[in-house]
Each structure stands twice: as structure tokens, then as C-alpha cells.
């Protein structure tokens, strides 16, 4: 079975990649990515409304990787990364796409997929209510995540998640999440 992290990108060639990263996702990497993308958006004279949405989604995407990625499989090429993730930021016309990739074990993959499906079939009003409910009723998890990241992204972008789980082996999948951020919503 061939497995290539970049396959997903070659299958979806639209847009220009303005940032690509793969490796350990730690606090310094997060800072660097945020600074770089913010500078590029300012240089491109993006409207502050779009800039803020992209920045917010990027923060949540990176921190989802930071808090939630599962350990890499034992036979994976990069064993040094404690939190292995992949990130691409693409500009496609007036929109941005933020694409993340990370390993998930099969049990977590099922939970994650159920959560994404629930968000994707919810209306904007339902997502707002869900956000408020989680904010008010759920404690911050041991991992430090609030359980709000994906809900917040869906709320701010107003777009459905595009995603896929590609089987890596019997215990792991590689999860791709593709988020569209545009000005209309």
C-alpha cells in the first residue's frame, strides 16, 4: 500500500500554497506559522474581516493539532515528533483554505468523524447554540482543549468541513481536514 502525506495535495491542485509545514507541532511552530500567515495577508492587502477569520481558524486548527494528535505509528518515518502534524495554507481566489493532516487511532477516528458529521449537518443557528452550550457546560479537558475548536471554526467560517480518513494500517488512519475561509460568511 502506498502512503504519501502529500497525495492529498496533488489530488487537489487548485489554489496557491502560501505555507506548508510538516513535523512536530509545538508552541514555537504555532507562533511562527501565525506570524508568517498574518504578514502575508497584510502584504496581500486582505480585508481585516477576512484576515481575522483566517487567523482565528488557523489558531484553532494549530491548537487542535497541538492538543489532540495521537502518537505517530511505530513504523512511521518521523519518530522524533511528539505531536506530528501537517498544515497547508492555500489562497484560492478570494478565499483561503486551511488544510491539516494528522494521525488518529481508529477509536478516536470514529469519535472525530461522528463529531464532524454532527457539525456538518447543523444549521448556523444550531452551531451557535452548540457553541454556547459547550462553553457553559463542559470543563477544559486534561489535554487542555476546550472541545470547542471545531465548533468555533464551523461557526466563524459558515462552511461545511471537507475531510477524509485514509487508512494507514490496522490501528491508524491519517486524517485530513480541509477548511474553506471566505468573505461571504
Amino acid at each position, binding site marked *: 500500500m502506498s502512503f504519501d502525506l502529500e497525495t492529498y495535495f496533488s489530488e487537489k491542485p487548485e489554489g496557491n500554497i502560501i505555507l506548508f509545514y510538516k513535523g512536530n507541532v509545538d508552541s514555537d511552530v504555532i507562533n511562527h506559522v501565525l506570524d508568517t500567515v498574518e504578514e502575508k495577508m497584510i502584504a496581500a492587502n486582505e480585508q481585516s*474581516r477576512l484576515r481575522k477569520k483566517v*487567523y*482565528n481558524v488557523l489558531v484553532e486548527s494549530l*491548537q487542535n493539532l497541538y492538543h489532540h494528535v495521537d502518537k505517530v505509528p511505530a513504523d512511521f518515518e518521523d519518530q522524533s515528533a511528539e505531536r506530528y502534524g501537517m498544515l497547508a495554507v492555500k489562497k484560492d481566489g478570494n478565499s483561503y483554505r486551511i488544510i491539516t493532516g494528522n494521525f488518529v487511532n481508529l477509536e478516536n477516528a470514529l469519535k472525530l468523524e461522528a463529531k464532524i458529521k454532527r457539525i456538518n449537518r447543523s444549521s448556523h443557528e444550531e452551531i451557535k447554540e452548540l457553541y*454556547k452550550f459547550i*462553553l457553559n457546560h463542559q470543563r*477544559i479537558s486534561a489535554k*487542555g482543549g*476546550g472541545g470547542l475548536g471545531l465548533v*468555533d471554526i464551523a461557526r466563524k467560517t459558515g462552511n461545511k468541513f471537507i475531510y477524509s480518513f485514509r487508512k494507514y494500517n490496522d490501528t491508524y488512519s491519517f486524517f485530513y481536514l480541509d477548511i474553506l475561509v471566505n468573505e461571504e460568511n
Partner: protein
Amino acid sequence: MEPIIIEGTPKTPTVKFDAAQGIFEIKGRSIPENSVEFYKPLVDWLDSYKEGPLPKTVVNIKLEYFNTSSSKCILDVFKKLEAIHKAKNEVEVNWYYEEDDEDMLEAGEDYESIIRVPFKMIEIVE
């Protein structure tokens, strides 16, 4: 009570909690990976302030960005303020947002709907 004065960083906000004036401010970006670590001292400080608050406390929130883990911590801050208000002290929250930032306005409205303290939504026009 000693005030809390914390300089902002690219990931954490500027904080000025002045018990003598009854004016509290949180300003800037709040996007740390570990929000609890940052906010716990503020929540603890408010617990002490709650024991002998001024008749009027004004809270100014001027955030440019905040992440979802900060959002829970900010709710904890508001819950302390709600307790002060419930004990028959005046508390006013001024929630500032930039004119094109509907997401930040909506975030303020979320808190307003959860917390029983008067909120004022203030648009910053550049």
C-alpha cells in the same frame, strides 16, 4: 489589595486589575496553548476581591483575538463578576469590538446571554 498588572505578549493579553479604582481591563490577544495557566491567577485574585469589592466595578474587555480555550477561562472571570453583582454591588462590563468584527460582537453577546451582569457593546470606529 495589590493590583494585577501584566504586560501583553503576542499570545497573552495585557491585564490591569486595579482594586483601588474598581477598574479591570483585559486587552489584546489571548491565544495561549495553556489558557488555564494564564487565567488562574486572575480568577483567584477576583475571588479575593469578591470579599470586599467597591460599590462599582467597571470591566473593560478589548480583545482582538481569543482562542476557544481562553473563551472558557474568560467565562470563569465573568462568573466571579456575576457573583460580585449578585451580592448587590454594581458591575458593568464594556465589551469592545472593532467595527467590522461581527465575530467579536457575537462572542460578547454569547457571554451577555450566559452571565447575569449588564454588558455594553462598544464599537471601536477607526
